[in-house]
């Protein structure tokens, strides 16, 4: 067993001992997920070091690499975990990229300890024509932000928000305490019942400027790239588990005097799903390797074709596998009590977020053309859409 696989086993064992809302048995109460189980999150921090996976060791983290972080996302997806790992790890990655100062080091240490839940507030897709919140200088060296963003993951559980805002016509990152009177978080009913989301309304929230322009861009890149890899990995994990569940079920469910898993239609369906799963795993590893390569040569990540491959495949495959898993479970698969639909919900929700505008395939084509030196109008056209 290699290191990554070992790490996955450790995380899996912990999540089995101390499961999230999805796998605790019984009917899932969406309202329970909307509130974060802080004690459990601290246990994941103290017993597993979860929030600090990639935070440098000097700030209390484990200082692991990208591949390890992706493995953790995969396991959390497999368990449909409802903790705030996705969002806090994005904030941690951004903070590392944004500023190397005392206040930030302190934040990173508190994140690693599980004491601080901080959430990124920015549109996930670069091409989507959303308005960013606007920031302006306020008294006492602070700033004031106004704006609204829908579907912010973990917003209802956040202690602090890392907000990307428009400041004097440029992108800048701000730190906002969630209990500021200028912050309102409206909980949303979500398709994915194991993922909390909220609309964040900033009505003159007091904010601390962390970074602007070039450094802010690095933070945006870290968050977007991390979100893509994280959600893609969750998809792979959720799909793995959904297929396992279906395979286990068809081995024991009998009809016509034999396990339904001995019928060729069922066997071939499962085999096809396995092939799909391998596609998703490969898409994820294409993305991870392309990011590693890109980091090594220090290029901007957003237009990476490798990331687009993961965005196209992981969500689509996970939605396929989790949907077919419901089908393979027959009648009980579409009852509320059975967890099959929870996997489908996570898969579809991530798929939607991974390519919210349906533009990823054509962006990929544009970047392939660009990489071949075919800097045609098309490539420039899409490059223009990506660039800021």
């Amino acid at each position, binding site marked *: 067993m290699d290191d990554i696989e070992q790490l996955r086993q450790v995380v899996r064992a912990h999540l089995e001992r101390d499961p999230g809302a999805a796998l605790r048995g019984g009917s899932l109460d969406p309202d329970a997920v909307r509130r974060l189980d802080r004690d459990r999150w601290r246990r994941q921090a103290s017993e597993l070091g979860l929030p600090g996976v990639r935070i440098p060791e000097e700030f209390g983290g484990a200082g692991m690499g990208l591949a390890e972080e992706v493995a953790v996302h995969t396991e959390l997806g497999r368990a449909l975990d409802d903790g705030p790992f996705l969002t806090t790890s994005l904030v941690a990655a951004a903070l590392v990229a944004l500023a190397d100062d005392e206040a930030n080091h302190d934040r990173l240490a508190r994140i690693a300890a599980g004491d601080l839940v901080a959430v990124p507030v920015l549109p996930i897709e670069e091409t989507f024509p959303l308005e960013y919140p606007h920031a302006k200088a306020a008294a006492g060296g602070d700033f004031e932000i106004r704006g609204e963003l829908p*579907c912010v993951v973990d917003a209802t559980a956040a202690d602090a928000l890392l907000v990307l805002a428009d400041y004097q016509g440029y992108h800048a990152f701000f730190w906002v305490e969630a209990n500021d009177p200028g912050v309102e978080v409206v909980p949303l009913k*979500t398709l994915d019942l194991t993922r909390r989301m909220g609309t964040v309304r900033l009505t003159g929230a007091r904010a601390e400027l962390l970074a602007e322009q070039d450094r802010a861009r690095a933070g945006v890149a870290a968050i977007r790239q991390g979100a893509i890899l994280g959600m893609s990995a969750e998809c792979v994990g959720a799909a793995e588990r959904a297929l396992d569940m279906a395979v286990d079920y068809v081995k024991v469910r009998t009809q016509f005097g*034999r396990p339904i898993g001995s019928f060729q239609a069922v066997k071939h369906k499962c085999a096809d799903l396995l092939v799909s799963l391998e596609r998703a795993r490969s898409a994820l590893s294409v993305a991870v390797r392309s990011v590693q390569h890109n980091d090594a040569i220090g290029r901007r990540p957003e237009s990476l074709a490798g990331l687009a491959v993961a965005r196209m495949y992981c969500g689509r495959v996970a939605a396929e596998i989790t949907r077919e898993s419901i089908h393979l479970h027959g009648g009980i698969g579409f009852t509320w009590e059975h967890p099959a639909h929870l996997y489908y919900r996570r898969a579809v929700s991530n798929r939607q977020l991974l390519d919210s505008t349906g533009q990823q395939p054509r962006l990929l084509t544009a970047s392939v053309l660009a990489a071949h030196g075919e800097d045609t109008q098309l490539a420039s056209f899409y490059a223009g859409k990506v660039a800021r």
Partner: protein
Amino acid sequence: MTTPATHESVAAEAHTFFAARAPRRERHGMLHGVGDDDVVGVGLTQPEDEAAEVAQAQKWQRDLFDARLAWLDGPAALGGRGLGHDYVELVAGIAAEYEVPSTSTYMVSHGIVAPTILAHGTEDQKQAFLPGIWRGDLICCQLFSEPEAGSDLASLRTTAVRDGDDWIVTGQKVWSSFAHVAKLGELLVRTGPPESRHRGLSMFLMDMDSPGIDVRPLRQVTGSEHFNEVFLDGVRVPDSRRLGPVDGGWNIAMTTVGSERSVLGRAHNGIMIEPVIRLFALARSTGAIADPAIQDLLAECWAREQVLHETATRLRDAGGPAPGSVVKLMTTSDMEYYSDVAARLLGYRMVADTGAWGTYSWSQLLLSAPSHRIAGGSDEIQRNILAERVLGLPREERPASEKSA
């Protein structure tokens, strides 16, 4: 009335009836943001709305029956009008021009149970039940599937044991639509030994308020409670309620399953609130309609709808075997296609309910799509039927273990 009914006279009656009770339906066409944004229709109502819906449907159905517009192709002696199926379609077409209340409560009653009683019931049974069913007083449900007998209906275990003039029924049924509001259940039970399989089953018409019946709603992944588990503990059913001969229930069940399939086929089309035109409207509202790739997807949706309707009509008229299986397989595939297109159009707007009209509501279609492949006989069973009954391919040989049993 002494003059014989003509298309014109019945159409006039229908218009008079509907116009007196319901507003004309406005054609929203491709407007987005107008009206109810529910995209799935029947069976997906949340529990709290259901009682009112049932009451409204009962009132409507009673008036319709009294106006002799409810059962146009039924025998006059039983409360029907004695006309052809063309009159049914005529009146349905006119009804669609008005904002009539949903009568999906009667989907099983009129689409499945009533035709079965008409085909297999005694004169007494027909007289006793059919007028009430068509008048809307007797909501019906179907009690076939069991937890251990889904696709393999011949393996069911709920038993009926003879006791004088009665049968004593014990067991558990599941996936029963409308059982929680039904007065009459079409019940398939084992009256022979287990190894007799399909040759040891009988059919009964059971009063749903009999002692020993416990109906428990099952919550579906959409959050709605359309199906039920039905626990039967020593329920007494008079032998006069037996439909067909003892141990002769299988053939009757097959009639029922056939009707069910075509009802579901219709339901998916008719009751769905025009999903394709909704998708066009959605694409216009987001501006995605300008994207040629989206135009291609919409064209495929539109073509699928045309093809499905044409197929349903064509196969019904041709009278060949298993048209319901073809229509059902097309329908489930179409539903998945539509929900994929909706997802493509909506992007992040499908992941949370921000209150925006006609966005998050599509997630219900997405969530209900997998259930359509199971309900009314799984898609796999439909493929077996087509392969064996239409194409004449060999039945799967039973495994040796079962043969020796």
